[in-house]
């Protein structure tokens, strides 16, 4: 147990790394950055308050839970483990993450899941309970982004320019309306059975964690956004 009151980010992170034990709880967190970055031996970190930017950057094998909101760039280049936020999170959530699970109870800011990618057993997943801001899944190269739009059932819960530069992975959007206005790299498709299974799996995880109505969420309409061609960049060049 650590009290973060009046500790700056250096002091707090030093403390986190020096505390023995694989499970820690941090109280009164107020904007300290980089929590969970470079912690090798910790299994779980519980945070009360609002952690600062780059929470869980390069995270490996550690589960972080935030009882509060999170700021920008959480899970930057994260490799494995999980980040669960009982609130909203800011811009660039899950930037370039390669593995693990990020679950946000509420909404996320701009550029969520930007440049996330997958590799073999690593398949990153971001589940967003509420809405996602503009540029969701920009340059996405792999992994799954699931946007549930809870409480925003009257509109499509993703912003503009979603999937710009997307060349891998998939985005699932729970929505009654077919999402529109995508860049040419993105295709909007109906979900098939395989997709439904994936959606169900992550919806159940979400519902369990945040006490949501799993059945209602599962029995909704979903759309699937995927990249348009296998190598969308290939045609762009002329050899000189």
């Amino acid at each position, binding site marked *: 147990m650590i009290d973060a009151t009046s500790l700056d980010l250096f002091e707090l992170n030093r403390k986190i790394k020096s505390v023995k034990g694989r499970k820690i709880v941090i109280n009164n967190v107020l904007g300290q*950055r980089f929590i969970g970055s470079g912690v090798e031996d910790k299994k779980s970190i519980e945070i009360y308050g609002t952690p600062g930017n780059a929470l869980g950057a390069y995270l490996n094998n550690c589960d972080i839970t935030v009882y509060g909101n999170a700021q920008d760039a959480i899970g930057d280049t994260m*490799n494995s483990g999980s980040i669960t936020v009982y609130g909203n999170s800011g811009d660039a959530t899950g930037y370039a993450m390669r593995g693990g699970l990020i679950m946000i109870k509420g909404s996320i800011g701009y550029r969520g899941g930007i440049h996330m990618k997958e*590799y073999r057993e690593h398949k990153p997943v971001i589940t967003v309970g509420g809405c996602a801001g503009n540029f969701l899944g920009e340059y996405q190269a792999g992994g799954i982004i699931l946007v549930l739009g809870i409480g925003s059932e009257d509109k499509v819960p993703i912003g503009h320019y979603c999937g710009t530069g997307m060349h891998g992975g998939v985005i699932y959007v729970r929505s009654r309306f077919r999402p529109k206005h995508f860049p040419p790299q993105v295709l909007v498709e109906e979900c098939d059975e395989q997709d439904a299974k994936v959606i169900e799996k992550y919806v159940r995880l979400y519902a369990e964690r945040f006490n949501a109505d799993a059945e209602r969420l599962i029995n909704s309409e979903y759309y699937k956004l995927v990249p348009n061609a296998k190598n969308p960049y290939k045609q762009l060049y*002329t050899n000189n």
Partner: protein
Amino acid sequence: MPINYIYPKYDVVRDSTRCIKCGACMRQCANEVHSYDDELDVMKSDSMDCVDCQRCVSICPTRALKIIPAENRLRPNGSWSQDDIYEIYRQAEGGGVLLSSMGTPKNYPIYWDKMLINASQVTNPSIDPLREPMETRVFLGKKPGKLEFDRKGKITTKLGPHLELNVPIMFSAMSYGSISKNAHESLARAAEELGTYYNTGEGGLHKDFYKYGKNTIVQVASGRFGVHEEYLNAGSAIEIKMGQGAKPGIGGHLPGAKIREEVSRTRMIPMGADAISPAPHHDIYSIEDLRQLVFSLKEATNYTKPVIVKIAAVHNVAAIASGIARSGADIIAIDGFRGGTGAAPTRTRDNVGIPIELALASVDQRLRDEGIRNDVSIVVGGSIRNSADIVKAVALGADAVYIASAALMALGCHQCHSCHLGKCNWGIATQRPDLVKRLNPEVGYKRLVNLVNAWNYEIKEILGGMGINSIEALKGNRLMLRGVGLADKELEILGIKHAGE
């Protein structure tokens, strides 16, 4: 359409009195220029795909081959060169961005060649490096404002992490993927032997090379390929790539075809998938954001490794460098626009950025003016061709230099400017196993060691000639330089006097 016909750039000339029809050229040319005609019993060639890499010329046992510029010319025109016209034909046909590789071949001024180095005569005696110790070791990283000692004379000031180089030369970033595994191994082993560093580039670090970690700089670029905790901790320093001299302002694209088994494992992306490095880091929109990435990397490595921020030399480089110096970075690497690349849009490569000499001079001056020069070290690259360039760079204010094109040349690169085709006949810019095999790392690393040792000796000799016995003492010592044939403004930016003054 006949306009699509572009006459080959080169002619392959075979002296039939020398050719013994051994077929070596045919086996060696990955561009399949040479062939053997069974019926006529002659070696033939179709130079259409020849890139003038000189592989066949070098391998031919009887010196029967030469590659010469093709004589067929379009009607000469002072406004429209043949290249200009052919590029239009290509784009009219393909409709794409023109793609090239290596450094720009255009004739931009090379300021290194317009600066001359001083030597001492009569008053301040010159030093012979064979007789007297001469220091070319450099330390890169933040230098403390003052040093404190305890009563026994031991330093008590806490020094930040830094890099120690036996020679003021490092191998700059070239990713595994853009160059071959054997090329990487040659660089890594040479860095170890020389007591300096090579740089992984943005393609991750191959498992086999973790053992060279002490001499490795690991790079983090916008694509974050192969970046994970173990990787960050594997090297001695971390470089954040913001830009590259050959293609400032744009990202990278390693085509899916080059992502084979091992490259895929190292980059941690699926085989055959395109590896796109977006132009910007999408979490960096300001110096304050850069600071955040710098410190997230420091936090992930427990403040044990210096962080380098690499930028391309662009118009506002001095102001940008000043920001970087305040971001918590320990080293700034500046890459000039004549630097090489594995692939870049031709127009960007040939038109964007500024010469490294001017960028270096203005950055060093700016940081001095602001009193923050000692907060960071400066490393420059992008067209360092020889030891004299290095001496001039140090005199203009660099702490050390990065070399890449020169290093590849030591490994056999013949500057055919075709790296982006992935069929490098010298086993460097390719992933084709039969081609990679041609570069023997055992031989390659020794050639790199030879080159750098030779340069280091030349540096000592030139230093000695100036009566200076340590490279530190030359740093920023612009009085040791004079310009020739430079205009006032150029002299002013370089901060040097004209020869004769």
